[in-house]
């Protein structure tokens, strides 16, 4: 047994990593719904979920259970195979794309193996291409769902999203070409490392400054690609009832739901990696004081949770919230006491904070913006985003060429 494990160590590690990442992504997904509902609620001067568990923290669990136990009727006249395939496809592709994201630069040393954060191999030199290939396939989930439901609203939703996702795929891909030119690689790790060429520049070294046009195109196209407000036309509830997933109920609907949220996470990761320096700290490398920033954030937050918890209305909340707060505070203290742990945590900390910021922007847009119309969306994609991203590519190439010509002296 031990021999088997040692000979197949890489395989075992990968399987464990996959299981772990799946668990984390699905949990984060669940709590993303909680986060979205809370943030949107506060934007709209409401409280949001607050009945199930303290501050509604168990609401995602209740929702998940509800999805599992709901009746799952299959409408008459659907194309059974495709009807079942569509949500599976959507979910599987959305989850697969996460596998390509690296979550930290340094390996953890366990059982004599260097274990890197992230599933994809280190030298995956087609990184971003593979990611785009997978997300591009995601349109099949939506299109097939719309077609196989044998209903008119889903059909319209499916048609809309096929057109939308294919159109914005172009702008999405073109807008990152600038970044790829600057990094000279498709590998996501290389792209981040390219932004760290001048460690003393910190935030000023990130791609966002030279590539601001590219970022604008990329983020807009990405929002459209994930079917979120203001580009949520395929499921525009006020027009198409629920769009492509009108005829889906129970867990099949949940699969679409999880797929959408997972692709939100993927896109936020990509934005961070391509334009915002991935796991790099925004401060110059010599400011080692900033390494204590995680603790500085975690300890007061933990104390606040404890404070809030002891005053909470329900007994359950008074037990759980202080415990959570204590855990958070303890984590903050651990980071101060063990410098190695603190150094290791820096990269994931920055990566996660940036991803969270992007997710917040997603939710914020949902609370603020109305929805585009179908023809306006197409016009926006083809007549504005695509030309802009092409201009960006040309400009970037010229600058790089100019630097090569004259910058050497």
């Amino acid at each position, binding site marked *: 047994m031990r021999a088997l494990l040692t000979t197949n160590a890489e395989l075992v590690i990968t399987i464990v990593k996959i299981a772990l990442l799946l668990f984390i992504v699905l949990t984060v997904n669940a709590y993303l719904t909680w986060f979205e509902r809370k943030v949107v609620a506060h934007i709209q001067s409401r409280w949001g979920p607050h009945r199930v568990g303290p501050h509604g923290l168990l609401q995602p669990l209740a929702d998940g259970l509800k999805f599992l136990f709901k009746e799952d009727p299959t409408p008459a006249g659907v194309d059974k195979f495709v009807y079942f395939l569509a949500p599976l496809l959507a979910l599987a592709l959305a989850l697969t794309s996460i596998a390509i994201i690296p979550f930290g630069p340094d390996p953890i040393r366990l059982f004599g193996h260097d274990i890197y954060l992230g599933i994809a191999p280190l030298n995956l030199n087609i990184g971003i291409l593979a990611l785009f290939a997978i997300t591009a396939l995601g349109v099949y989930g939506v299109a097939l769902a719309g077609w196989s439901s044998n209903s008119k609203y889903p059909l319209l939703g499916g048609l*809309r999203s096929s057109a939308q996702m294919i159109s914005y795929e172009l702008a999405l891909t073109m807008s990152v070409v600038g970044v790829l030119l600057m990094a000279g690689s498709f590998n996501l790790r290389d792209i981040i490392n390219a932004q760290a060429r001048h460690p003393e520049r910190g935030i000023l070294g990130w791609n966002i400054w030279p590539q601001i046009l590219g970022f604008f195109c990329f983020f807009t196209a990405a929002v459209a690609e994930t079917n979120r407000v203001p580009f949520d036309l395929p499921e525009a509830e006020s027009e198409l009832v629920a769009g492509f997933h009108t005829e889906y109920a129970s867990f099949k609907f949940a699969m679409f739901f999880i797929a959408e949220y997972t692709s939100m996470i993927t896109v936020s990761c990509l934005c961070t990696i391509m334009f915002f320096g991935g796991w790099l700290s925004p401060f110059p490398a010599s400011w080692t004081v900033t390494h204590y920033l995680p603790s500085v954030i975690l300890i007061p937050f933990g104390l606040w949770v404890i404070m809030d918890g002891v005053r909470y209305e329900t007994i359950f909340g008074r037990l759980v919230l202080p415990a959570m707060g204590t855990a958070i505070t303890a984590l903050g203290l651990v980071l101060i006491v063990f410098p190695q742990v603190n150094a290791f945590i820096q990269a994931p900390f920055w990566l996660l904070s940036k991803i969270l910021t992007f997710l917040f922007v997603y939710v914020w847009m949902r609370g*603020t913006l109305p*929805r585009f*119309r179908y023809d306006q969306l197409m016009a926006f994609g083809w007549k504005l985003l695509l030309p802009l991203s092409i201009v960006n590519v040309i400009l970037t190439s010229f600058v790089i060429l100019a630097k090569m010509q004259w910058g050497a002296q």
Partner: protein
Amino acid sequence: MTTVETVTGAAKTMVLNMGPQHPSTHGVLRILLELDGETVVKAVPDLGYLHTGIEKSCEDKTYSQVITLTDRMDYLNPLGNNLVYCLAVEKLLGLEVPKRAQYIRVMMVELQRISSHLVWLGTHAIDLGAMSVFLYCFREREEILNIFEMFAGQRMMTSYIRIGGVALDPPAGWRQAVDKFLRMMPSRVDEYETLLTQNPIWIGRTKGVGYISPEDAIALSMTGPTLRAAGVAYDNRKVFPYSSYGEFKFEVPTRTESDCYARYLVRVAEIRESLKIVRQAMERILDEGPIKAEAPGIIPPQREKMKTEMEALIYHFKIFTEGFSPKPGDAFVSVESPRGELGCFVASDGSPKPLRVHFRSPSFINLQALPKLIEGQLIADVVACIGTIDIVLGEVDR
């Protein structure tokens, strides 16, 4: 003539059944859409899913009992419905309503107009995907409903306006409540406008959408903000002033673009004008004074009198057992509801129950224009157009 049956769909088109259960048809409106891709080739509204028979039921009630039925017609404008019915009956009876009651009526109806426009703005915005505006509007509507509850004991089906006056004296502290609302509201309207008026997506979704020419609008008897957005400054409060509206200073906002955006701007401007009217009405309402006309046998006597005067007791008994009987004849009165010209026709045959009560409901008549607004547009515009006509299905079907 296009009817529901004639919508069959040619070889290249698809027939989409929108409603009666649909998130954006504002109730149970059913529209049959013939689509070429996403473009609407033909649209036929199909009504009657909320037919309650209110007009018929009125014939079996005494004149006073009808008031509670009118509340349930246009459920966003119950006080306006009360008002138009009471004005019609008062015209039939030749009653003179005391000034104080008239001002109270004006104030309540204008508050109602604001609340109705808030519901309109919220639902229209959520139809176009702007979710937060919906909740902001309902937050402010809540304040108005609280004021109604203060006055009438009810939030929606108030039945506050009665034949010959209003039901109750204004409650203690009403001035502070209304004043607080009036001081809060302008900044809140600014807030909605910040989110929408200059928003490029909002402008893109509404500007140039659902155009109707002033000639067509007049030919289809459209009234209310929909007509005023086409540049026709027709407002019953100005044209046929009722309930002392002639004494109030206010503008009639108009636009000339006649699209969804113009209708939006007109309604938002109307909210601001209504605030002015409420302010003026509040200042005119005296602390003391009668709230009901003097008309023994028609208006229920005061409690005090019933205990001291025998006649008052008899009248009270007769009003609540039999009702009162106007002379044979008929009367028609129309007011400006938030949706347009709301008319009421009451015919009497000399019995204590009306022979016929008919309402000219603006929602029903404005809805005729829907096919004209949406044919040739996209599905997404259908939603925007239904929204800007501002229909209330309870009033469409009656």
